C-alpha cells in the first residue's frame, strides 16, 4: 500500500537508476513456459484467470524478472468482437477467419462492449491478481493488440497491407475503429493495476515507414496521449526485421521499443542509436534458436555478448526477441536471468 502512495518511478528512471548502479533490468517475454511448470495447457490458462495467474506466479518465483507479463494472446480482442477463433490445446488461440470486406461491415461490431466479454474479463482479472499477488519489485505488464494488427485480423493481413496503398481511407477507418476497441481495454487494464502496457503490433512490420506512421504510430500516439497521466509506461513490440521502422516507433511517445532477434536482421546497437537516448530499447535474445533449442551455455553466451555490445548504452533492457514459446527449458530461462544479474 505504502509503495503505491509514493510517486511511481517511470520505466525510464528505473532503467537509468539500474545503469548507474551497474545493473541491467532483465525482462524476458515469457508466459507459456509457465504452463509447462504447472503441467497446464495453454487453452486452460488462456480461459481461466486463476490458472493463468498461477502460471505467471510460478515463473516469477523461479526467475524473479524485473517485470512480468500476462500471456501473449493476439486473438482476445478480436474474439470479443465475435470473430472465429480456434483454440488448440497446447498453442495460443488464433483468429482463423477475417470477415470484414467493407467499412460498413464494422457497424455490426460497434454496439459490442468488449469489456463484457468473458475472455477479456479473464485477462483483466489476471492482471488484478498479478497486481495483488506478485512481489512489489516486479512490474505488472499487460498486452494490448496494435491498431494495424487488429485491422489485419478484421479484414485479413494481406488485404490490410494492400489497403495501406490502394484504399487508405478504408484502412484508416479500420484502424480508427480498432483504436477505439483498444482504448476501452487499455482503460480496464490500467484500472486493474498494470504498470506496463505492451502494444503488440507484429503485422505492421510489413508496412513501409510512411504507411507505418500513418496507420500504426499515429494511433499509438493517440492512445498514449489519452493515458499520459495514468502512471503507466508503454512498450511498442513488433516482431521481425523492424530496422526500417525504428525511428517512427520511437517517435510515437512510447517509453520503450521491443525488438526481435538478430537473426531477423535487427541490430540492437544501431537501433539504440536510431531510437535516441530517451527511448528504452528492449531485446533481443532469439526465443527459439537460443532460448528453446539452445543449451544453458549457449543462452549465457548470447546474453553476455548482447550485454557487452550494449555496454555503453544506458537505455537498454535485456529481453527476448519475442514471446517465449512453450517448451523452453527452465534451465535456459534461469541462465538468461543469472547472466543478466551477474553482468557488470
Amino acid at each position, binding site marked *: 500500500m505504502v509503495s503505491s502512495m509514493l510517486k511511481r518511478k517511470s520505466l525510464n528512471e528505473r532503467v537509468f537508476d539500474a545503469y548507474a548502479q551497474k545493473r541491467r533490468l532483465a525482462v524476458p517475454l515469457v508466459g507459456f513456459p509457465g504452463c509447462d511448470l504447472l503441467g497446464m495447457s495453454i487453452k486452460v490458462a488462456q480461459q481461466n484467470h486463476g490458472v493463468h495467474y498461477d502460471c505467471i506466479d510460478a515463473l516469477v518465483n523461479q526467475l524473479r524478472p524485473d517485470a512480468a507479463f500476462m500471456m501473449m494472446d493476439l486473438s482476445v480482442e478480436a474474439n470479443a468482437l465475435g470473430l472465429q477463433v480456434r483454440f*488448440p490445446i497446447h*498453442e495460443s488461440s*488464433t483468429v*482463423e477467419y477475417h470477415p470484414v470486406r467493407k467499412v460498413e461491415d464494422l457497424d455490426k461490431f460497434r454496439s459490442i462492449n468488449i469489456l463484457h466479454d468473458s475472455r477479456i474479463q479473464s485477462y483483466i482479472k489476471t492482471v488484478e491478481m498479478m497486481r495483488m499477488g506478485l512481489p512489489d519489485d516486479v512490474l505488472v505488464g499487460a498486452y494490448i493488440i496494435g491498431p494495424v494488427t487488429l485491422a489485419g485480423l478484421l479484414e485479413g*493481413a*494481406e488485404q490490410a*497491407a*494492400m489497403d*495501406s*496503398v*490502394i484504399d487508405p481511407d478504408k484502412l484508416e477507418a479500420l484502424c480508427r475503429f480498432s483504436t477505439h476497441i483498444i482504448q476501452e481495454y487499455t482503460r480496464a487494464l490500467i484500472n486493474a493495476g498494470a504498470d506496463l502496457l505492451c502494444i503488440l503490433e507484429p503485422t505492421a512490420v*510489413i*508496412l*513501409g515507414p510512411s*504507411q507505418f506512421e500513418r496507420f500504426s504510430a499515429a494511433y499509438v500516439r493517440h492512445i498514449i496521449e489519452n493515458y499520459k497521466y495514468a502512471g503507466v509506461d508503454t512498450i511498442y513490440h513488433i516482431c*521481425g526485421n523492424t530496422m*526500417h521502422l525504428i525511428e517512427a516507433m520511437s517517435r510515437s511517445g512510447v517509453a520503450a521499443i521491443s525488438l526481435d532477434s538478430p537473426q*531477423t536482421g535487427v541490430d540492437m546497437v544501431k537501433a539504440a542509436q536510431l531510437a535516441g537516448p530517451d527511448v528504452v530499447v528492449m531485446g533481443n535474445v532469439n526465443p*527459439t534458436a537460443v532460448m*528453446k533449442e539452445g543449451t544453458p551455455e549457449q543462452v549465457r553466451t548470447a546474453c553476455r555478448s548482447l550485454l557487452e555490445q550494449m555496454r555503453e548504452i544506458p537505455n537498454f533492457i535485456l529481453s527476448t526477441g519475442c514471446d517465449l*514459446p512453450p517448451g523452453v527449458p527452465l534451465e535456459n530461462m534461469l541462465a538468461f536471468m543469472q547472466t543478466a544479474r551477474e553482468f557488470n
Partner: protein
Amino acid sequence: MADLKALADAVIKGNQTESVRLTKEALAEKMSPKRILEEGLIAGMGVVGVRFKANEVYIPEVLISARAMKMAMEILEPQLAAAGVDPIGKAIIGTVQGDLHDIGKNLVIMMLKGAGFNVEDIGVDVSPDAFVEKIKASKPQIVGLSALLTTTMPAMDKTIQSIRQAGLNCKIMIGGAPVTQNYADKIGADGYAPDAATAVDVAKSFLN
C-alpha cells in the same frame, strides 16, 4: 501496337485494371503470349523485386504488383497453353498443417508463375496426407512447403516423410521466416529458399 512497356508499368504500379486491359489489347493484336509474359509482366515484376531489395518499396507495393500480375496471368495462361508454350515445370505449393500464414507463399507462387512454372496453390493448413493426395493427382516435379511458425516446422518434417513413404518422386523445396538451410538438410528437403526470388532459382535448379 500494344505497349508492353506500359504493361510492365501497370504491374510496377500495381494497377490491375490497366494490366488486364493491356494484356487483352496485346492478345487482340496477336502478339505472342510468351512475349507479353516476358516483356510485360515478368519485366514489371522484376523491377518491383529490385526496388523491394533496395528498400524503395515495401511488402504492400509488392503484393499489389503481384495481384496486378496475377489478374493478367489469368487471361494469359490459357493463351500460353494454346500457343503451345509449355510451362518450364510443374509445382504445387502449400502451407503446412496448423499454419495459416500465406502472404509469403503467395509471393513465391507469383514469382514462380512469372518465371514460367505452372503452379498449383493448395492453400494453408495442408495435412501431410492432403499433400500426398495432391501430388498423386497432379504429378508435379516440384513440391513447395511453407511454414511461418516454429511450432509448425515439425509438420514439414512429417510431410516430407509422408511424401517419401508414398514413394513419390518429386523435388521438395521449403521456406518461410523461421526455416533455415540447416533445417532443410536435417529433414531431407531437396532445397531451401530464404525469399521468393531465390525460390525461383532453386526451382529451376531442380529441373536440370
